[in-house]
């Protein structure tokens, strides 16, 4: 089969794409495939994730223009670099650029908070730090705790108590 692009060389690269459920096929020679951006499988693999990911950040870039570049103290990455490569520099970058990264993270994962396991050191540290936290829970934590109680009340069909809890949550939300 001849290349569908140049109609000269033998087609060696076959590209199947499914876009919105519709399949299209392209048969290209090696030179045209490269020219059109369909490189070998390995090249494509190593590039695809960051390229794909940097697309998520793109709309955050203009906001940065004309400002002094903020860099992560640990690894020296700027947010611009993270956007360009699609890769975060180090664990501390997540703290340094938390507010800027959050919208992109939410776009990938939804409005979520970690729900899986926790490493043992962190568990141990939390246990020693726990008394401080209970002394002054944030409003968000209070609401979270009340919501849990409300669910328990609903589960045990204690609807009167659930209604009281619901009103308390509402009041707390309004204060916010």
């Amino acid at each position: 089969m001849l290349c569908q692009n140049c109609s000269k060389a033998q087609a060696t690269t076959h590209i199947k794409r499914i876009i919105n459920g519709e399949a299209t096929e392209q048969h290209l020679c090696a030179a045209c495939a490269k020219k059109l951006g369909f490189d070998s499988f390995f090249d494509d693999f190593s590039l695809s994730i960051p390229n794909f990911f940097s697309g998520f950040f793109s709309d955050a870039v203009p906001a940065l223009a004309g400002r002094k570049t903020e860099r992560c103290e640990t690894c020296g990455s700027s947010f611009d670099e993270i956007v360009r490569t699609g890769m975060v520099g180090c664990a501390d970058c997540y703290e340094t650029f938390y507010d800027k990264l959050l919208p992109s993270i939410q776009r990938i994962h939804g409005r979520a908070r970690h729900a899986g396991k926790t490493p043992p050191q962190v568990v141990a540290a939390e246990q020693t730090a726990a008394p401080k936290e209970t002394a002054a829970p944030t409003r968000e934590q209070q609401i979270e705790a009340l919501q849990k109680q409300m669910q328990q009340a609903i589960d045990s069909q204690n609807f009167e108590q659930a209604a009281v809890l619901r009103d308390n949550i509402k009041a707390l939300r309004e204060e916010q």
Partner: protein
Amino acid sequence: MNEQMMQSIPLSTRIRLARNLKEYPFPAKLSAEEKQLVNETVRDALLDGDDAGNYRYIEMKDLSSTEAVSLAEKHLISPEFASSADGRALILSNDETVSIMLCEEDHVRIQVIEPGLSLDKAWEKANALDEKLAARLTVAFDEKLGYLTQCPTNLGTALRASVMLHLPALSRAGLMPRLSSTIAKLGLTLRGTYGEGSKIVGELYQLSNQVTLGISEQAAIQNLAAIARQIMEQETAARETLRTDNVFIDRIYRANGILQSAYMLTCSECTDLLSLVRLGAALGILDVPLDTLTKLLTAIQPATLSVQEGRVLPAAQRDVLRAQKVKEALQNA
């Protein structure tokens, strides 16, 4: 539902956990020497006492590119990991069920492979290694974001669970595009066997979880197992309809005939024929052990053939050798 047929559909299960050491920047920010330091730190933490004898520590620069690609063909490392040896190392168990990629996209990627659909068992093994790592080294973790990874798509549990499924009947019925889009809505993906961007060969698909933040490891695994079983049920039902299709049964016998007598087989032709024969065996039309066919699907890959032979073979010679290996395996089965 025909349970035996169901069980013939999943070839293998994989669990992958990504972890990073808190005190080092992520791999893209490290020099080759720094990567080596990370690799050796992880090696010393994981390989001691009883475990030392069960694992090999391999610096990727000590492998030829053919050997590296063969490991990728066996799914022990990612194709991306095989593509560059710079500062990378691998901890591989002697039975090739556990492989730990060091300084791939993250410092540590623990991977466990189990045959068939066996998510719980694979998770237990991977989790045990993770516990050992976390007991000795400080892992990058944030209360809200979970395990911190170089690419934010893996934040949270940093767990990728996947099941490799043989779906010839659903593929032939043209149902895959619809199934893929339904699965995407459930937070899972269905793609080629070599992951992101790879094409579908031998009607083999990899079903894996996509969302890692806001879902526990157990929930992600249960969700994946439930969806895998639903797909397996649909594939089983679709296979039953093929039993009465004479044209199709003829194709299965012909595929078996070619595999038993061809002098040369290219990798893609061989994979397609093995897929048909595997389906024939699952339907009870052909008397070939499924296990033999599953093993052949990996053994006939180009780099794996070259490694077995101990030298890099030109394509035409490889095709002769491939046909010979397949013939032998089928006749001895």
